[in-house]
Protein backbone atom coordinates (compact mmCIF):
# COMPACT_ATOMS: atom_id res chain seq x y z
CA UNK A 1 0.00 0.00 0.00
CA UNK A 2 1.44 3.36 -0.95
CA UNK A 3 2.05 6.04 1.68
CA UNK A 4 -0.58 8.28 0.05
CA UNK A 5 -3.21 5.53 0.08
CA UNK A 6 -2.44 4.75 3.73
CA UNK A 7 -2.77 8.39 4.63
CA UNK A 8 -6.09 8.68 2.79
CA UNK A 9 -7.45 5.89 5.00
CA UNK A 10 -5.94 7.21 8.21
CA UNK A 11 -7.92 8.42 11.19
CA UNK A 12 -6.18 11.80 10.94
CA UNK A 13 -7.65 12.19 7.49
CA UNK A 14 -11.12 10.89 8.35
CA UNK A 15 -11.26 13.36 11.22
CA UNK A 16 -10.23 16.28 9.07
CA UNK A 17 -12.95 15.36 6.55
CA UNK A 18 -15.62 15.02 9.25
CA UNK A 19 -14.65 18.36 10.80
CA UNK A 20 -15.23 20.12 7.50
CA UNK A 21 -18.77 18.71 7.08
CA UNK A 22 -21.30 21.55 7.14
CA UNK A 23 -24.05 19.66 9.01
CA UNK A 24 -24.31 16.83 11.56
CA UNK A 25 -25.96 14.64 8.90
CA UNK A 26 -23.00 15.13 6.59
CA UNK A 27 -20.55 14.60 9.42
CA UNK A 28 -22.38 11.35 10.15
CA UNK A 29 -22.08 10.37 6.47
CA UNK A 30 -18.30 10.80 6.68
CA UNK A 31 -18.27 8.63 9.83
CA UNK A 32 -20.22 5.92 7.98
CA UNK A 33 -17.81 6.12 5.05
CA UNK A 34 -14.78 5.86 7.36
CA UNK A 35 -16.29 2.87 9.19
CA UNK A 36 -17.23 1.14 5.92
CA UNK A 37 -13.65 1.61 4.71
CA UNK A 38 -12.79 -0.44 7.81
CA UNK A 39 -15.24 -3.20 6.79
CA UNK A 40 -18.09 -2.28 9.12
CA UNK A 41 -21.54 -2.42 7.58
CA UNK A 42 -24.42 -0.77 9.43
CA UNK A 43 -23.89 2.24 11.67
CA UNK A 44 -26.41 3.40 14.26
CA UNK A 45 -26.20 6.43 16.58
CA UNK A 46 -28.59 6.53 19.57
CA UNK A 47 -29.23 8.75 22.55
CA UNK A 48 -29.46 6.21 25.37
CA UNK A 49 -30.47 8.71 28.07
CA UNK A 50 -32.21 12.04 27.76
CA UNK A 51 -29.87 14.86 26.73
CA UNK A 52 -31.24 17.97 28.49
CA UNK A 53 -28.24 20.01 27.28
CA UNK A 54 -29.40 19.37 23.71
CA UNK A 55 -33.10 19.54 24.60
CA UNK A 56 -33.41 16.00 23.18
CA UNK A 57 -35.01 12.88 24.68
CA UNK A 58 -33.57 9.39 24.52
CA UNK A 59 -33.93 7.97 21.01
CA UNK A 60 -32.79 4.70 19.40
CA UNK A 61 -31.21 5.04 15.94
CA UNK A 62 -31.48 8.80 15.77
CA UNK A 63 -29.08 8.57 12.84
CA UNK A 64 -28.12 5.41 11.04
CA UNK A 65 -28.05 3.16 8.07
CA UNK A 66 -30.33 0.43 9.47
CA UNK A 67 -33.53 0.03 7.39
CA UNK A 68 -36.39 1.96 8.96
CA UNK A 69 -38.72 -1.07 9.16
CA UNK A 70 -36.02 -2.91 11.11
CA UNK A 71 -35.63 0.08 13.48
CA UNK A 72 -39.39 0.19 13.97
CA UNK A 73 -39.52 -3.54 14.79
CA UNK A 74 -36.60 -3.17 17.20
CA UNK A 75 -38.44 -0.38 19.02
CA UNK A 76 -41.85 -2.09 18.90
CA UNK A 77 -40.55 -5.31 20.43
CA UNK A 78 -39.11 -3.42 23.39
CA UNK A 79 -35.51 -4.33 22.58
CA UNK A 80 -34.57 -0.74 23.36
CA UNK A 81 -34.94 -1.85 27.00
CA UNK A 82 -34.21 -5.58 26.92
CA UNK A 83 -31.33 -6.07 24.46
CA UNK A 84 -28.30 -7.17 26.57
CA UNK A 85 -26.27 -4.81 24.41
CA UNK A 86 -27.45 -1.84 26.50
CA UNK A 87 -26.28 -3.40 29.73
CA UNK A 88 -22.87 -3.99 28.15
CA UNK A 89 -22.85 -0.35 27.08
CA UNK A 90 -23.56 0.99 30.60
CA UNK A 91 -20.77 -1.13 32.02
CA UNK A 92 -18.24 -0.38 29.30
CA UNK A 93 -15.39 2.07 29.93
CA UNK A 94 -14.74 2.31 26.21
CA UNK A 95 -15.60 0.50 22.98
CA UNK A 96 -16.51 -3.16 23.43
CA UNK A 97 -17.25 -5.98 21.05
CA UNK A 98 -20.76 -7.44 20.99
CA UNK A 99 -21.21 -10.82 19.36
CA UNK A 100 -24.88 -11.63 19.00
CA UNK A 101 -24.25 -15.02 17.43
CA UNK A 102 -21.61 -16.42 19.73
CA UNK A 103 -22.59 -18.64 22.63
CA UNK A 104 -26.13 -19.31 23.70
CA UNK A 105 -28.50 -16.57 24.71
CA UNK A 106 -29.54 -17.02 28.31
CA UNK A 107 -32.89 -15.27 28.20
CA UNK A 108 -35.77 -14.92 25.77
CA UNK A 109 -35.01 -11.19 25.47
CA UNK A 110 -31.41 -11.92 24.53
CA UNK A 111 -32.54 -14.48 21.95
CA UNK A 112 -34.94 -11.91 20.44
CA UNK A 113 -32.13 -9.34 20.32
CA UNK A 114 -29.71 -11.77 18.70
CA UNK A 115 -32.34 -12.63 16.09
CA UNK A 116 -32.93 -8.94 15.36
CA UNK A 117 -29.21 -8.23 14.83
CA UNK A 118 -28.93 -11.40 12.75
CA UNK A 119 -31.61 -10.05 10.41
CA UNK A 120 -29.27 -7.12 9.73
CA UNK A 121 -26.54 -9.54 8.75
CA UNK A 122 -24.61 -8.57 11.85
CA UNK A 123 -22.30 -11.27 13.19
CA UNK A 124 -20.32 -8.99 15.46
CA UNK A 125 -20.50 -5.33 16.33
CA UNK A 126 -18.52 -2.64 18.08
CA UNK A 127 -20.49 -0.75 20.71
CA UNK A 128 -19.07 2.62 21.74
CA UNK A 129 -20.30 4.42 24.88
CA UNK A 130 -20.36 8.19 24.31
CA UNK A 131 -20.67 10.09 27.57
CA UNK A 132 -21.20 13.80 28.07
CA UNK A 133 -21.67 16.20 30.97
CA UNK A 134 -24.64 15.89 33.29
CA UNK A 135 -24.58 12.08 33.09
CA UNK A 136 -25.83 11.85 29.51
CA UNK A 137 -25.05 8.68 27.54
CA UNK A 138 -25.20 8.09 23.79
CA UNK A 139 -24.03 5.09 21.78
CA UNK A 140 -22.61 4.26 18.43
CA UNK A 141 -23.06 0.72 17.11
CA UNK A 142 -21.19 -0.44 14.01
CA UNK A 143 -21.99 -3.92 12.77
CA UNK A 144 -19.73 -6.32 10.94
CA UNK A 145 -20.85 -9.20 8.72
CA UNK A 146 -17.64 -11.04 9.53
CA UNK A 147 -17.51 -13.79 12.13
CA UNK A 148 -13.92 -13.16 13.09
CA UNK A 149 -13.04 -11.31 16.28
CA UNK A 150 -12.36 -7.61 15.79
CA UNK A 151 -8.76 -6.52 15.80
CA UNK A 152 -8.07 -4.35 18.91
CA UNK A 153 -6.67 -1.55 16.76
CA UNK A 154 -9.82 -1.55 14.60
CA UNK A 155 -11.95 -1.44 17.74
CA UNK A 156 -9.99 1.62 18.93
CA UNK A 157 -10.23 3.23 15.50
CA UNK A 158 -14.02 2.80 15.44
CA UNK A 159 -14.14 4.16 18.98
CA UNK A 160 -12.13 7.30 18.21
CA UNK A 161 -14.03 8.03 15.00
CA UNK A 162 -17.26 7.79 17.02
CA UNK A 163 -15.92 9.98 19.84
CA UNK A 164 -14.98 12.61 17.30
CA UNK A 165 -18.41 12.52 15.63
CA UNK A 166 -20.08 12.69 19.05
CA UNK A 167 -18.07 15.84 19.85
CA UNK A 168 -19.17 17.46 16.60
CA UNK A 169 -22.76 16.43 17.27
CA UNK A 170 -22.76 17.94 20.77
CA UNK A 171 -21.14 21.13 19.52
CA UNK A 172 -23.55 21.67 16.65
CA UNK A 173 -26.72 20.61 18.46
CA UNK A 174 -26.05 22.33 21.78
CA UNK A 175 -29.04 24.31 22.97
CA UNK A 176 -28.39 28.05 23.42
CA UNK A 177 -25.95 28.61 26.27
CA UNK A 178 -27.74 29.14 29.58
CA UNK A 179 -27.82 32.64 31.00
CA UNK A 180 -24.53 33.64 32.54
CA UNK A 181 -24.34 33.44 36.29
CA UNK A 182 -21.14 34.75 37.82
CA UNK A 183 -20.41 33.37 41.27
CA UNK A 184 -17.96 34.77 43.77
CA UNK A 185 -15.27 32.46 45.12
CA UNK A 186 -17.10 32.25 48.47
CA UNK A 187 -20.40 31.36 46.80
CA UNK A 188 -18.68 28.72 44.69
CA UNK A 189 -17.07 27.18 47.77
CA UNK A 190 -20.40 27.06 49.59
CA UNK A 191 -21.98 25.44 46.53
CA UNK A 192 -19.23 22.81 46.19
CA UNK A 193 -19.42 21.80 49.85
CA UNK A 194 -23.23 21.80 49.86
CA UNK A 195 -23.21 19.43 46.87
CA UNK A 196 -21.05 17.09 48.96
CA UNK A 197 -23.78 17.01 51.58
CA UNK A 198 -22.15 19.30 54.16
CA UNK A 199 -24.32 21.36 56.50
CA UNK A 200 -23.83 25.07 57.02
CA UNK A 201 -22.07 24.42 60.31
CA UNK A 202 -19.69 21.96 58.68
CA UNK A 203 -18.99 24.30 55.77
CA UNK A 204 -18.15 27.08 58.23
CA UNK A 205 -15.55 24.82 59.87
CA UNK A 206 -14.07 23.78 56.50
CA UNK A 207 -13.81 27.38 55.29
CA UNK A 208 -12.72 28.72 58.67
CA UNK A 209 -15.55 31.19 58.92
CA UNK A 210 -18.80 31.55 60.89
CA UNK A 211 -22.09 29.76 60.07
CA UNK A 212 -23.54 33.24 59.78
CA UNK A 213 -21.19 34.10 56.91
CA UNK A 214 -21.92 30.78 55.20
CA UNK A 215 -25.62 31.53 55.53
CA UNK A 216 -25.08 34.96 53.95
CA UNK A 217 -23.29 33.48 50.91
CA UNK A 218 -25.85 30.71 50.64
CA UNK A 219 -28.74 33.18 50.54
CA UNK A 220 -26.98 35.19 47.83
CA UNK A 221 -26.38 31.96 45.91
CA UNK A 222 -30.07 30.99 46.04
CA UNK A 223 -31.01 34.43 44.84
CA UNK A 224 -28.56 34.39 41.93
CA UNK A 225 -29.81 30.96 40.84
CA UNK A 226 -33.45 31.95 41.48
CA UNK A 227 -34.23 28.87 43.59
CA UNK A 228 -35.73 28.24 47.00
CA UNK A 229 -33.55 25.51 48.51
CA UNK A 230 -29.94 24.36 48.61
CA UNK A 231 -30.89 21.10 46.86
CA UNK A 232 -32.52 23.10 44.08
CA UNK A 233 -29.41 25.32 43.89
CA UNK A 234 -27.21 22.26 43.33
CA UNK A 235 -29.62 20.91 40.68
CA UNK A 236 -29.70 24.29 38.96
CA UNK A 237 -25.92 24.63 39.12
CA UNK A 238 -25.56 21.19 37.48
CA UNK A 239 -27.98 22.18 34.73
CA UNK A 240 -26.15 25.49 34.24
CA UNK A 241 -22.83 23.61 34.31
CA UNK A 242 -21.48 25.70 37.12
CA UNK A 243 -20.62 22.94 39.48
CA UNK A 244 -17.50 20.93 40.12
CA UNK A 245 -18.85 17.41 40.53
Amino acid at each position, binding site marked *: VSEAARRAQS*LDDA*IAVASRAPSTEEAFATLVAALRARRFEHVCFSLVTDHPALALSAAFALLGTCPSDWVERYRATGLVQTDPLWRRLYEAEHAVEYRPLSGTAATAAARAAFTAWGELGCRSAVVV*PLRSSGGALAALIATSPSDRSLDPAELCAASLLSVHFHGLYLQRRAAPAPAEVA*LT*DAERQVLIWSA*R*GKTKKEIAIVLGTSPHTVDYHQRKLLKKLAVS*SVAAAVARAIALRL*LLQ
Partner: protein
Amino acid sequence: LIAKGFPLIDRFIEVSLSCKSQDELFVAFRAAMGELGFDRLIVSLMTDHTRFGLNAQHGIVGNYPADWMQFYVASGYEELDPVRQWVVTADGPFAWRDPARNGLLSRIQRNLLHEAEDAGLKDGVGIPLRGAHGALAGVGAASSVGRLSLTPTIMAHAQLIAHQYYAAYLTLHSAKRRVSPVLLSTHEREVLKWSAEGKSKREIAAILGVSRHTVDYHCRRLLERLDVPNVTAALMRAVQMGALQL
Protein backbone atom coordinates in the same frame (compact mmCIF):
# COMPACT_ATOMS: atom_id res chain seq x y z
CA LEU B 1 8.39 1.04 16.66
CA ILE B 2 6.26 2.62 14.01
CA ALA B 3 7.87 5.16 11.75
CA LYS B 4 7.02 8.82 11.99
CA GLY B 5 5.11 10.19 9.05
CA PHE B 6 2.47 7.53 9.41
CA PRO B 7 -0.60 9.40 10.66
CA LEU B 8 -0.39 10.34 14.33
CA ILE B 9 -3.62 8.91 15.74
CA ASP B 10 -3.29 5.53 14.00
CA ARG B 11 0.31 5.37 15.18
CA PHE B 12 -0.63 6.19 18.77
CA ILE B 13 -3.33 3.47 18.81
CA GLU B 14 -0.73 0.86 17.80
CA VAL B 15 1.83 2.10 20.32
CA SER B 16 -0.67 2.40 23.20
CA LEU B 17 -1.92 -1.16 22.64
CA SER B 18 1.63 -2.48 22.89
CA CYS B 19 2.48 -0.73 26.19
CA LYS B 20 3.05 -3.07 29.11
CA SER B 21 3.26 -0.52 31.94
CA GLN B 22 1.81 2.84 32.94
CA ASP B 23 5.26 4.44 32.65
CA GLU B 24 5.68 3.20 29.11
CA LEU B 25 2.18 4.37 28.23
CA PHE B 26 2.77 7.87 29.58
CA VAL B 27 6.02 8.16 27.61
CA ALA B 28 4.10 7.26 24.44
CA PHE B 29 1.34 9.73 25.35
CA ARG B 30 3.93 12.47 25.89
CA ALA B 31 5.54 11.75 22.54
CA ALA B 32 2.23 11.87 20.67
CA MET B 33 1.04 15.07 22.39
CA GLY B 34 4.52 16.52 21.87
CA GLU B 35 4.05 16.20 18.11
CA LEU B 36 1.03 18.49 18.46
CA GLY B 37 3.13 21.01 20.40
CA PHE B 38 1.99 20.10 23.92
CA ASP B 39 5.12 19.29 25.91
CA ARG B 40 3.50 19.77 29.34
CA LEU B 41 0.87 17.26 30.46
CA ILE B 42 -1.08 16.35 33.55
CA VAL B 43 -3.61 13.56 34.04
CA SER B 44 -6.06 13.77 36.94
CA LEU B 45 -8.76 11.48 38.23
CA MET B 46 -11.59 13.89 39.06
CA THR B 47 -13.76 11.21 40.69
CA ASP B 48 -12.99 7.91 42.41
CA HIS B 49 -12.62 5.08 39.91
CA THR B 50 -14.12 2.57 42.31
CA ARG B 51 -14.03 -0.51 40.12
CA PHE B 52 -10.32 0.02 39.50
CA GLY B 53 -9.60 0.66 43.17
CA LEU B 54 -8.36 4.18 42.35
CA ASN B 55 -9.23 7.32 44.29
CA ALA B 56 -9.73 10.79 42.88
CA GLN B 57 -6.36 12.51 42.68
CA HIS B 58 -4.96 15.60 41.03
CA GLY B 59 -2.02 14.75 38.82
CA ILE B 60 -1.75 10.95 38.89
CA VAL B 61 0.92 11.38 36.23
CA GLY B 62 2.35 14.38 34.44
CA ASN B 63 5.32 16.57 33.77
CA TYR B 64 4.15 20.01 34.86
CA PRO B 65 7.03 22.01 36.40
CA ALA B 66 7.65 20.81 39.96
CA ASP B 67 7.75 24.34 41.42
CA TRP B 68 4.34 25.09 39.88
CA MET B 69 2.89 21.87 41.34
CA GLN B 70 4.18 22.81 44.80
CA PHE B 71 2.86 26.35 44.54
CA TYR B 72 -0.48 25.02 43.25
CA VAL B 73 -0.97 22.70 46.21
CA ALA B 74 0.28 25.26 48.75
CA SER B 75 -2.14 27.86 47.38
CA GLY B 76 -5.09 25.47 47.64
CA TYR B 77 -5.75 25.88 43.93
CA GLU B 78 -7.24 22.43 43.44
CA GLU B 79 -10.67 23.63 44.62
CA LEU B 80 -10.55 26.86 42.61
CA ASP B 81 -8.82 25.83 39.41
CA PRO B 82 -11.19 26.82 36.58
CA VAL B 83 -9.64 24.20 34.29
CA ARG B 84 -10.73 21.47 36.72
CA GLN B 85 -14.20 23.00 36.88
CA TRP B 86 -14.50 23.20 33.10
CA VAL B 87 -13.41 19.57 32.73
CA VAL B 88 -16.52 18.63 34.71
CA THR B 89 -18.92 20.54 32.51
CA ALA B 90 -17.22 20.56 29.10
CA ASP B 91 -18.29 18.10 26.44
CA GLY B 92 -15.06 18.32 24.51
CA PRO B 93 -11.59 19.85 24.54
CA PHE B 94 -11.38 23.54 25.43
CA ALA B 95 -8.74 26.26 25.48
CA TRP B 96 -7.99 27.73 28.94
CA ARG B 97 -7.94 31.12 27.30
CA ASP B 98 -11.34 30.76 25.58
CA PRO B 99 -12.81 34.26 26.07
CA ALA B 100 -16.35 32.83 26.29
CA ARG B 101 -15.27 30.94 29.41
CA ASN B 102 -13.02 33.58 30.94
CA GLY B 103 -15.81 36.10 31.41
CA LEU B 104 -17.25 34.10 34.30
CA LEU B 105 -14.03 33.76 36.24
CA SER B 106 -13.47 35.22 39.66
CA ARG B 107 -10.45 37.41 40.33
CA ILE B 108 -8.50 34.57 41.97
CA GLN B 109 -9.25 32.27 39.07
CA ARG B 110 -8.09 34.78 36.46
CA ASN B 111 -4.96 35.26 38.49
CA LEU B 112 -4.39 31.50 38.65
CA LEU B 113 -4.40 31.25 34.86
CA HIS B 114 -1.88 34.12 34.58
CA GLU B 115 0.38 32.46 37.12
CA ALA B 116 0.19 29.15 35.21
CA GLU B 117 1.31 30.93 32.07
CA ASP B 118 4.19 32.56 33.93
CA ALA B 119 5.17 29.12 35.21
CA GLY B 120 5.58 27.90 31.62
CA LEU B 121 2.13 26.49 30.93
CA LYS B 122 1.10 28.42 27.82
CA ASP B 123 -1.70 27.83 25.33
CA GLY B 124 -3.24 25.27 27.67
CA VAL B 125 -6.13 23.03 26.82
CA GLY B 126 -8.33 20.84 29.01
CA ILE B 127 -9.82 17.55 27.91
CA PRO B 128 -12.59 15.77 29.82
CA LEU B 129 -12.60 11.97 29.80
CA ARG B 130 -15.60 10.00 31.01
CA GLY B 131 -15.83 6.37 32.09
CA ALA B 132 -18.61 4.12 33.32
CA HIS B 133 -20.68 4.92 36.43
CA GLY B 134 -19.93 8.62 36.38
CA ALA B 135 -16.15 8.25 36.45
CA LEU B 136 -14.46 11.42 35.29
CA ALA B 137 -10.83 12.11 34.48
CA GLY B 138 -9.17 15.05 32.82
CA VAL B 139 -6.05 15.87 30.88
CA GLY B 140 -4.33 19.24 30.98
CA ALA B 141 -1.94 19.95 28.13
CA ALA B 142 0.14 23.06 27.58
CA SER B 143 3.23 24.34 25.84
CA SER B 144 6.36 25.64 27.57
CA VAL B 145 7.09 27.68 24.45
CA GLY B 146 3.66 29.06 23.54
CA ARG B 147 2.53 30.41 20.20
CA LEU B 148 0.51 27.28 19.45
CA SER B 149 -2.37 27.73 17.12
CA LEU B 150 -5.24 25.88 18.77
CA THR B 151 -7.17 25.00 15.62
CA PRO B 152 -10.16 22.64 15.77
CA THR B 153 -7.97 19.98 14.10
CA ILE B 154 -5.25 20.24 16.77
CA MET B 155 -7.92 20.14 19.50
CA ALA B 156 -9.60 17.09 17.94
CA HIS B 157 -6.25 15.28 17.65
CA ALA B 158 -5.42 16.08 21.28
CA GLN B 159 -8.85 14.87 22.39
CA LEU B 160 -8.62 11.55 20.58
CA ILE B 161 -5.07 10.86 21.73
CA ALA B 162 -6.11 11.63 25.32
CA HIS B 163 -9.16 9.39 24.89
CA GLN B 164 -7.01 6.52 23.67
CA TYR B 165 -4.57 7.13 26.54
CA TYR B 166 -7.40 6.92 29.10
CA ALA B 167 -8.76 3.70 27.53
CA ALA B 168 -5.29 2.14 27.61
CA TYR B 169 -4.68 3.48 31.15
CA LEU B 170 -7.82 1.79 32.47
CA THR B 171 -7.12 -1.41 30.52
CA LEU B 172 -3.68 -1.65 32.15
CA HIS B 173 -5.29 -1.19 35.59
CA SER B 174 -8.02 -3.74 34.74
CA ALA B 175 -11.27 -3.68 36.66
CA LYS B 176 -10.87 -5.12 40.12
CA ARG B 177 -14.52 -5.44 40.95
CA ARG B 178 -17.94 -5.19 39.48
CA VAL B 179 -20.06 -2.17 40.25
CA SER B 180 -23.70 -2.72 39.49
CA PRO B 181 -25.47 0.25 37.95
CA VAL B 182 -27.72 2.24 40.24
CA LEU B 183 -31.26 2.10 38.92
CA LEU B 184 -33.59 4.41 40.81
CA SER B 185 -37.15 3.39 41.63
CA THR B 186 -39.96 5.58 40.34
CA HIS B 187 -40.51 6.99 43.84
CA GLU B 188 -36.84 7.72 44.36
CA ARG B 189 -36.69 9.46 41.01
CA GLU B 190 -39.75 11.56 41.91
CA VAL B 191 -38.21 12.58 45.22
CA LEU B 192 -35.04 13.71 43.45
CA LYS B 193 -36.89 15.45 40.66
CA TRP B 194 -39.09 17.49 43.01
CA SER B 195 -36.21 18.24 45.38
CA ALA B 196 -34.38 19.64 42.37
CA GLU B 197 -37.36 21.95 41.94
CA GLY B 198 -36.90 23.17 45.50
CA LYS B 199 -39.81 21.29 47.04
CA SER B 200 -39.72 20.20 50.67
CA LYS B 201 -40.60 16.66 51.73
CA ARG B 202 -44.02 17.84 52.86
CA GLU B 203 -44.68 19.47 49.50
CA ILE B 204 -43.46 16.37 47.64
CA ALA B 205 -45.87 14.23 49.67
CA ALA B 206 -48.73 16.52 48.66
CA ILE B 207 -47.70 16.48 44.98
CA LEU B 208 -47.42 12.69 44.86
CA GLY B 209 -50.57 12.19 46.94
CA VAL B 210 -48.80 10.06 49.53
CA SER B 211 -48.06 10.54 53.22
CA ARG B 212 -45.07 12.43 54.52
CA HIS B 213 -44.05 9.12 56.10
CA THR B 214 -43.89 7.42 52.66
CA VAL B 215 -41.73 10.20 51.23
CA ASP B 216 -39.47 9.87 54.26
CA TYR B 217 -39.16 6.15 53.66
CA HIS B 218 -38.16 6.51 50.00
CA CYS B 219 -35.82 9.32 50.88
CA ARG B 220 -34.03 7.26 53.53
CA ARG B 221 -33.67 4.34 51.12
CA LEU B 222 -32.31 6.67 48.46
CA LEU B 223 -29.68 8.16 50.78
CA GLU B 224 -28.67 4.70 51.92
CA ARG B 225 -28.32 3.38 48.37
CA LEU B 226 -26.30 6.37 47.19
CA ASP B 227 -24.35 6.49 50.46
CA VAL B 228 -24.84 10.22 51.01
CA PRO B 229 -25.98 12.27 54.04
CA ASN B 230 -28.79 14.31 52.47
CA VAL B 231 -30.92 14.96 49.39
CA THR B 232 -28.65 17.75 48.12
CA ALA B 233 -25.70 15.36 47.96
CA ALA B 234 -28.01 12.66 46.54
CA LEU B 235 -28.81 14.88 43.54
CA MET B 236 -25.13 15.34 42.84
CA ARG B 237 -24.32 11.66 43.23
CA ALA B 238 -27.24 10.52 41.06
CA VAL B 239 -26.07 12.77 38.23
CA GLN B 240 -22.49 11.58 38.64
CA MET B 241 -23.57 7.94 38.47
CA GLY B 242 -25.62 8.50 35.36
CA ALA B 243 -28.86 7.62 37.13
CA LEU B 244 -30.34 11.08 36.64
CA GLN B 245 -29.95 13.79 34.01
CA LEU B 246 -30.41 17.46 34.76
